């Protein structure tokens, strides 16, 4: 398959190749890497297989049009944003009520490359202190997931939380840990 043959080329390299020879096949290879994920995102918001398929095609057309005109720094995050916005517009057209916390437009979409904590070794003493400051729910889920390597399902079985609660405790716990560590680093 095309995707496997070009697996070693990064998204940004594919975009550079397109910019140098204007062959749209490069854009095709890039977009095809995310077809299944886009289908999933559209399915999550639109809840209908046929509409999700149509939406992916529309997103491809939109992405092709934009990529032909402008360079994009983080194609993966950018495509996710396009997909979320497209689905949101579809939902608005359908006049369905989307609650604020589920609204894709309001989600924080950024690339993790810019995250300062990713670039340097985390100070383990600070991390241990920060973990102790988390709420019990978050501490338990984060410890089970990252230290004891339990899956979401196993954590759910052990703690009695639903899968969604487990995911949310891990996500919120991580976010709080970052904030706590950054605070401690500035104090030091």
């Amino acid at each position, binding site marked *: 398959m095309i995707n496997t043959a070009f697996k070693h080329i990064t998204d940004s390299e594919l975009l550079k190749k397109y910019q140098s020879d204007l062959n749209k096949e490069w854009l095709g290879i890039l977009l*095809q890497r995310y077809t299944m994920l886009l289908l*999933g995102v559209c399915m999550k918001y639109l809840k209908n297989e046929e509409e999700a398929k149509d939406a992916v095609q529309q997103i491809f057309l939109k992405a092709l049009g934009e990529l032909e005109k402008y360079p994009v720094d983080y194609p993966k995050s950018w495509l996710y944003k396009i997909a979320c916005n497209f689905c949101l517009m579809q939902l608005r057209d359908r006049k369905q009520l989307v609650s604020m916390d589920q609204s894709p437009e309001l989600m924080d979409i950024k690339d993790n490359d810019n995250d300062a904590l990713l670039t340097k070794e985390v100070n383990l003493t600070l991390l241990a202190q920060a973990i102790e400051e988390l709420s019990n729910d978050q501490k338990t889920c984060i410890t089970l*997931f990252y230290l004891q390597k339990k899956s979401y399902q196993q954590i759910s079985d052990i703690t009695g939380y639903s899968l969604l609660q487990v995911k949310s405790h891990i996500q919120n716990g991580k976010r709080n840990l970052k904030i706590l560590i950054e605070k401690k680093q500035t104090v030091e």
Partner: protein
Amino acid sequence: MSQWNNIFKKEADVSEEELLQYLNQELSEAEMQAIEEKMADSAFHQDALEGLAQINNKSSIQSITNSLNQQLSKQISRRNKRTKKRPIQDQQWLIVVVLSVLILSIVGYLLIHFYR
């Protein structure tokens, strides 16, 4: 304690095959956890997984993906052809315009020359 270093690790790529195996629960708990850890920081993957789980016939996910990819390939080759053809068509117009100007000039010159 060193395992904690993974906690802020950058999200790793998850292949389509891994995603499907995860959805179909064909993996051991340890393998499931490894994939969950790779996707933990990616809202894109989390949303996609949630959506794909809503597709009733899981075996159709791969075929839907393949057909969407085929349609995209067709679209791309159509767009590529259009871009390649345009310069030739533009050149043809250019030739027509240049020839018309030349012919008009010659005709004009001859008319002026013979009727003077």
